[in-house]
C-alpha cells in the first residue's frame, strides 16, 4: 500500500526500511504503530466473524421453532458470538489498536516503554483468537455454555470447553501485558512539560483502564484455570457434588467480568472526549472532572460485580450492598456525559462522521446506563434478570457505546493512520444505516424482555414474534451499514484523497507530526507548554463575531 507523503522528509512508518524484509518487517516489528495496525486488521476480522454469528442468530429467531439451525448449533453460536465479541473485539479493540498507535504520540514519546513485550501481546492475542476459532472444529463440538462458562454446566458438558477457556486465559494475559506497558509508558515517557493535567483525555482513560486490566484480569485467569483443573482432575473447588460452590464461581467470574466492561467503555469514553472538542471547536468543559472520573469509574466499577448475581442465591445483605454500590458508579459516568454535552453547547459544530458516531455514542450509552440503573435495583432485577432486557441493556453499552466509540475512533484517526481520507458522504450514509439498524435490532429486546422473553432461548411464544421480526430486520440494516462502512474505509486506504497533517483541526500532539507519522514519531521530542485542547483562538473569534 503506497502511502501519501505530505511534508515528510523522512519516510513514514509504512514505507520505512527496517532490518527485516517483506512480511517479517511487520511480524517482527517493535514499532507501536505497526503493531497497532496489525491489531486493527485482526480485530476487525474477528469482529466480522462475531457479527456474522449474530446475524445468523437473529435469522434463526425470526420465527418460533426451527428456522435455519438446530438448537445445539444455536447454543454454540451465542456462546461463540459472546466469546469473540467480548474477548476478541471490545476488550482489546480500543487500547490495542488506538492506544498502541496514539498513546505514545499523544504524550510525546517515540514508542511504548516495552516494545518487545508489546509485540508479544499481539502474538498472544492472535494465538488466543485462533484457538477460539479452532475450538469450533475440534472433535467434541463447539462450546455451548454461553460466554459466562457457568458452573456446573461448564464442568459437565462434553463440548470443547477447555480450548475455549485456554483461549480466554491467553487473551487475558495479552490484555494484562498491554495494560502494564501503557501504565509504565505513561509514568516514564511523557514529554518534557507534559504533566498529568496536560495529558489528553484518551491517555487518561487508558491509564485508568490499565489499572483495571492489571488488577482484575488475574482473577478471571485463575478462575478459568480452576474450571479447567476441575474438569480434568476433579479437585472439587467448584463441583457442587464434591462440596464446591457454584455461586463462588460466579463471584470470581464477575469480580473480573464486571470491571471488564470498564476496560471496554473507558477507552471509548476517552475517544469521545478527544472528538467532541475538535468538532465543536471548543476547549473541553471540565477537563479535570473527566480525567478524575475515569479513575473513579475504574475504582467504583470494581466494587459492583454482585449485581450480576441478584437471583443466584446471594445473602440479602450482599444484595443491598452491591445494589447501593451500583448506583454510585453511575455518578462518574454521568459527569462525563454532562461535560461532553456542555462542551457542545454554543460550539461551532462540524457534523462529520466521527462526531456523528460520538453523538450516537452519547445517546445510546445513556440509554444503556439508565437501563443499567433499572436492573441495578433489586426488585426490578428479579423481574428482568435473564430476559432479553438484559441483552438489550448490555448491547446498548457494549455496542451502542464501546462499539460506536471504536467506529468513531476509526473515522477520526483514519487519515493520520493511513495518510488518506475516506469518502465523507458515504461515511455518513453508513453511519445512518449502522445507527438506525442498531436501534432497530436492540430496542425491541427491551420491550419483549420486559414482557417476559427469556434470553438465550431458541424458541419462543408466538406473541413475541413481531418484536423478533423487527429486531431481525434491524440486524440486516445494521450489517449492511457495517459492510458499507468497512468498504468505504478500505477504499479510502487504497485510493482516498491524500490527507494533510491536521485534517480536522485537532490540537493534540498526533496532529503535529507528519501524516502518516515517521518511524520515530518526532524528530525532536516536543516540549509541552499548554493543555491538550486549546481552542481559545476559535473562542475569541466567535466572541468577536457576535
Amino acid at each position, binding site marked *: 500500500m503506497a502511502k501519501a507523503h505530505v511534508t515528510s522528509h523522512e519516510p513514514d512508518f509504512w514505507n520505512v526500511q*527496517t*532490518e527485516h524484509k517483506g512480511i517479517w518487517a511487520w511480524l517482527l516489528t*517493535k*514499532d507501536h504503530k505497526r503493531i497497532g495496525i496489525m491489531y486493527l486488521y485482526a480485530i476487525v476480522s474477528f469482529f466480522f466473524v462475531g457479527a456474522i454469528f449474530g446475524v445468523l442468530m437473529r435469522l434463526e429467531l425470526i420465527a418460533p421453532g426451527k428456522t435455519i439451525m438446530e438448537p445445539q448449533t444455536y447454543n454454540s453460536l451465542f456462546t461463540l458470538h459472546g466469546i469473540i465479541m467480548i474477548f476478541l473485539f471490545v476488550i482489546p479493540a480500543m487500547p490495542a489498536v488506538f492506544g498502541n498507535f496514539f498513546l505514545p504520540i499523544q504524550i510525546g514519546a*517515540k*514508542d511504548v*516503554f*516495552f*516494545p*518487545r*513485550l508489546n509485540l508479544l501481546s499481539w502474538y498472544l492475542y492472535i494465538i488466543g483468537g485462533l484457538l477460539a476459532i479452532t475450538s469450533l472444529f475440534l472433535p467434541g463440538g463447539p462450546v455451548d455454555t454461553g460466554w459466562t462458562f457457568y458452573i456446573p454446566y461448564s464442568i459437565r458438558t462434553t463440548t470443547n470447553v477447555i480450548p475455549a477457556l485456554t483461549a480466554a486465559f491467553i487473551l487475558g494475559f495479552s490484555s*494484562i501485558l498491554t495494560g*502494564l*506497558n501503557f*501504565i*509504565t509508558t505513561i*509514568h*516514564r*515517557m511523557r514529554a518534557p512539560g507534559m504533566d498529568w493535567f496536560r495529558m489528553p483525555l484518551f491517555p487518561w482513560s487508558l491509564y485508568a483502564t490499565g489499572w483495571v486490566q*492489571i*488488577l*482484575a*484480569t*488475574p*482473577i478471571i*485467569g*485463575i*478462575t478459568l484455570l*480452576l474450571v479447567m*483443573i476441575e474438569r480434568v*482432575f*476433579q*479437585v*472439587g*473447588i467448584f463441583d457442587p457434588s*464434591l*462440596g*464446591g*460452590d457454584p455461586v*463462588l464461581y460466579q463471584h*470470581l467470574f464477575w*469480580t473480573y467480568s464486571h470491571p471488564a466492561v470498564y476496560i471496554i467503555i473507558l477507552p471509548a469514553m476517552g475517544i469521545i472526549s478527544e472528538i467532541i472538542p475538535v468538532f465543536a471547536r471548543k476547549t473541553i468543559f471540565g477537563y479535570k472532572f473527566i480525567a478524575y472520573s475515569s479513575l473513579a469509574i475504574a475504582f467504583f466499577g470494581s466494587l459492583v460485580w454482585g449485581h450480576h448475581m441478584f437471583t443466584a442465591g446471594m445473602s440479602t445483605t450482599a444484595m443491598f450492598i452491591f445494589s447501593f454500590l451500583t448506583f454510585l458508579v453511575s455518578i462518574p459516568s454521568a459527569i462525563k456525559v454532562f461535560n461532553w454535552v456542555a462542551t457542545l453547547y454554543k460550539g461551532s459544530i462540524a457534523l462529520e462522521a466521527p462526531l456523528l458516531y460520538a453523538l450516537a455514542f452519547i445517546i445510546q450509552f445513556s440509554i444503556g446506563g439508565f437501563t443499567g440503573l433499572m436492573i441495578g435495583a433489586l426488585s426490578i432485577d428479579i423481574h428482568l434478570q435473564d430476559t432479553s432486557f438484559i441483552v438489550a441493556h448490555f448491547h446498548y453499552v457494549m455496542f451502542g457505546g464501546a462499539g460506536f466509540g471504536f467506529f468513531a475512533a476509526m473515522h477520526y484517526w483514519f487519515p493520520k493512520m493511513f495518510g488518506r481520507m475516506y469518502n465523507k458522504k458515504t461515511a455518513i450514509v453508513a453511519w445512518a444505516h449502522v445507527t438506525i439498524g442498531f436501534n432497530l435490532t436492540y430496542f425491541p429486546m427491551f420491550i419483549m424482555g420486559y414482557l417476559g422473553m427469556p434470553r438465550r432461548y431458541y424458541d419462543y411464544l408466538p406473541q413475541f414474534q413481531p418484536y423478533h421480526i423487527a429486531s431481525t430486520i434491524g440486524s440486516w440494516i445494521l450489517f449492511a451499514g457495517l459492510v458499507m462502512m468497512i468498504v468505504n474505509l478500505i477504499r479510502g486506504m487504497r485510493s482516498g484523497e491524500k490527507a494533510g497533517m491536521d485534517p480536522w483541526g485537532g490540537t493534540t500532539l498526533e496532529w503535529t507530526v507528519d501524516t502518516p507519522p515517521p*518511524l*520515530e514519531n518526532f524528530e525532536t521530542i516536543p516540549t509541552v507548554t499548554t493543555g491538550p485542547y486549546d481552542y481559545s483562538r476559535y473562542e475569541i473569534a466567535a466572541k468577536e463575531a457576535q
Partner: protein
Amino acid sequence: MSGQWETQSVHLHRDDAGSRMGMWLFLFTELILFGGLFIVYAVYRYAHQAEFHLAAQELHSTIGFINTIILLTSSMTMAMSITALQKGNKALSMALVSATLILAGAFLVNKFFEWAGKFANGIYPGSPELMNRPQGEVLYFGLYFVMTGLHALHVVIGMALLAVNLSFIKRNVYTGENTVKLETAGLYWHLVDLIWIFLFPLFYLLH
C-alpha cells in the same frame, strides 16, 4: 518478562526505574492471581472449619518448615547476588545465583517427596480414598494441590529466569551499572518467596 528492550532504530533512553516499575506491575498480577485462590481458601475455610483443621494434621509441618527455611535463604542469596554484581564481583554474583538455583531445586525435591507421600496414602484429586471423606477435606486437599502446585510452577519459571541470568553474567552481558535484568529476575524470585510465606501457615500450621 521485563527489561530494557531496544527497538530496531528507536534508541530509548535507558530507564531502570521504569523497567522495575513494569516488573512490579507484573508482580501485582501474580499477586492477584494467587489472591483469587486465597479468596477461595478463605471462603471454604470459613464454611468447613472443623474439616480443614482435621485435614491439615495430615500434612508434614516439618517438610513445610524446612521448605520455608530453604526459600527464605534462597531469597537472601538472590538479593546478595545483585549486590555482588553491582559491586563488580562477578564470581561471587554467579556463586550466589547458583546457590539460589540449588536451593530452589532442593525445595522442589522436598515438594516432590511430600506429594509422592500423599499419593502413596491414596490422597490425590479424584482418588477413591478422598472421595469417601467429608467434603471439607476434599476441598482442603483440592486447594492444597492446586495452590502448592501453582506455586511450584512459579518456582520452575523462576529457576528458568535465573538460569538465563546466570549465563548472562557469565557472558558479561551486564556491563557497568547495567544490572536491571538481574534485579527484575530477583523481584520475581522474591515474589515466589512472598507467596510461600502465606501458603506455609495456611496449610501446614493451622491445625
